């Protein structure tokens, strides 16, 4: 019976694991490494990488600054208000990214009042770096809130009570007790958020087809030049995903 249980897991689970890992390995086998390295210097790739890293960094920063207080509140609150707020935070996670793009366009699109005003001010919110950041923040920031919430929950509230009963303020307690203990989880959340932001495709396609981020560039290369021309950027993004996995664990 014990054997039967393990066999099923090995068989079924093994198929799924193979389905995850074989295609990724296959990508690396599809192109000779030297060829890929040679193509990395192409100005199109460099531009896309710059746009992606810059926009994802800003989106992650915004998510962290605005998300951490919310994550802390979600970790310590309970009741109906907490459930409702958590529902709102999870909404962008269950919403398809293209739909995220559509709803953002209804507010920030070039024909919306806000979008028109922004264009008039010389700071367009679509087809611009700002558009990329708006899309990435919408899709990626909930990851920060949800992950940091779990990190804060793992810091026993008793430790905060202990600190405060020793005469220390909430801020002092946060700085010396809560945040230091939550840091590993917060770092994991920041990393996940960055990974999600840099991989964002659906909403970005809607809001900012230009300037091209790496995922958009992959799409364009694939459509215009064929599969093999999408490999270099894809390999870059697989590398980033690999680093993300290492940081999370």
């Amino acid at each position: 019976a014990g054997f039967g249980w393990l066999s099923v897991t090995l068989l079924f689970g093994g198929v799924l694991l193979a389905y995850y890992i074989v295609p990724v390995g296959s990508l690396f086998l599809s192109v000779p490494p030297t060829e890929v390295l040679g193509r990395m210097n192409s100005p199109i790739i460099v531009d896309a990488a710059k746009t992606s890293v810059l926009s994802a960094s800003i989106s992650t920063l915004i998510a962290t600054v605005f998300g951490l207080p919310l994550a802390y509140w979600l970790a310590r609150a309970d009741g109906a208000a907490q459930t409702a707020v958590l529902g709102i935070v999870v909404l962008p996670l269950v919403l398809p990214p293209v739909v995220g793009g559509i709803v953002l366009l209804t507010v920030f699109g070039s024909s919306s009042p806000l979008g028109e005003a922004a264009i008039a001010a010389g700071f367009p919110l679509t087809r611009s770096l700002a558009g990329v950041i708006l899309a990435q923040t919408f899709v990626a920031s909930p990851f920060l809130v949800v992950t940091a919430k779990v990190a804060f929950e793992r810091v026993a509230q008793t430790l905060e009570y202990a600190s405060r009963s020793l005469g220390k303020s909430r801020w002092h307690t946060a700085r010396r007790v809560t945040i230091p203990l939550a840091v590993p989880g917060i770092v994991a959340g920041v990393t996940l958020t960055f990974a999600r932001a840099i991989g964002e495709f659906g909403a970005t396609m809607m809001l900012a087809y230009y300037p091209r981020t790496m995922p958009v560039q992959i799409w364009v290369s694939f459509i215009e030049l064929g599969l093999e021309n999408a490999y270099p950027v894809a390999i870059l993004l697989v590398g980033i995903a690999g680093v993300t996995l290492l940081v999370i664990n």
Partner: protein
Amino acid sequence: MTLNLSDLSKTYGQFKFGPFDLRVEDGVLAVLGPSGSGKTTLLSLIAGITEPDSGSICLNGRELVGHPLENRDVGMVFQEGALFPHMTARENIAYAATTAARVDGLAATLEIEDILNRSPPVLSGGEYQRVALARTLATDPAVLLLDEPLSSLDTPIRRRLRDELHSLFESLDIPILYVTHDQRTATALGDRIAIVRDGMLEQVGDSSTVVEQPATEFVARFTGNENLFEGSVIEHSEQGVTVRVGDVELQTATSNIGQSDITVCIHPSRVEIKPSRAPDDEQIINTITGTVTRWLNEGSEYQIEMATSWGSPALTASVHPPVFERLTIDTGTELQIMIPPSSIHLMPNRG
């Protein structure tokens, strides 16, 4: 210094705490009660972890309700110690202390000098609680609250730390509330004992008073007074009232009882037993006959259950091993049971 709780109440869903009135002076008040009785709620309200729905908490005339945790001057030792796991023992104490000398002084008092550089997760249970206590004392609180700090320790270490706490508490001139569910710890450490039940104060008084003169059956059972029998007062005299339980008349040393229907309460450690045909027939008073139905060896004492003419429940006596061995007791042994008048406590019968 004085801590004064008045009309304090707090409701959490199904559980209602209070209304609760209590005055705590310098010295140790042991708060004793079963789990879920509201002991920890009481400490949380005083410390400011929870705000009451109503009522007042006055420390030396200063109202604490409404003031945040950090401004109450109340020291608390949490049940599991709550040391900061990312700091060493020394850093934990220094977090609260104003000078390094204070840290060293407390480390000396609590005999933890050798482990100051260790991290909390590697400390033993006893060391952990010593550090937690040092950290709390470092702020020189005006009130000290302790939430079962010994409950997770092994017996020999628990006894040793308990004895040390006893000495330490004597050196502190502040009100101390010590929460426990263990009656031995409560009587050993508490100058006074407060018995809590279902969020209400059931009895408060000197430790010996609570154990020897429980106000209610609940307190009696919780303090180990297992022998409870219903009876009635038949005579008031100068030495005290005489009561009848079943067909036996018991002379007591109590005089202040108004009711006629009472419950007789006799602590097992105050029941004296002798061989059935003892030659000295002088002490006829308060003597009945019993047959051993069961005995249990508890290591340092034996619990002997005896069937008497009083029927159910059986009468229990606890005796030390030398007494047990001298009487060669086994199931079926007939014994003479003597209950000294001063060992009988009478409670109004709530029936």
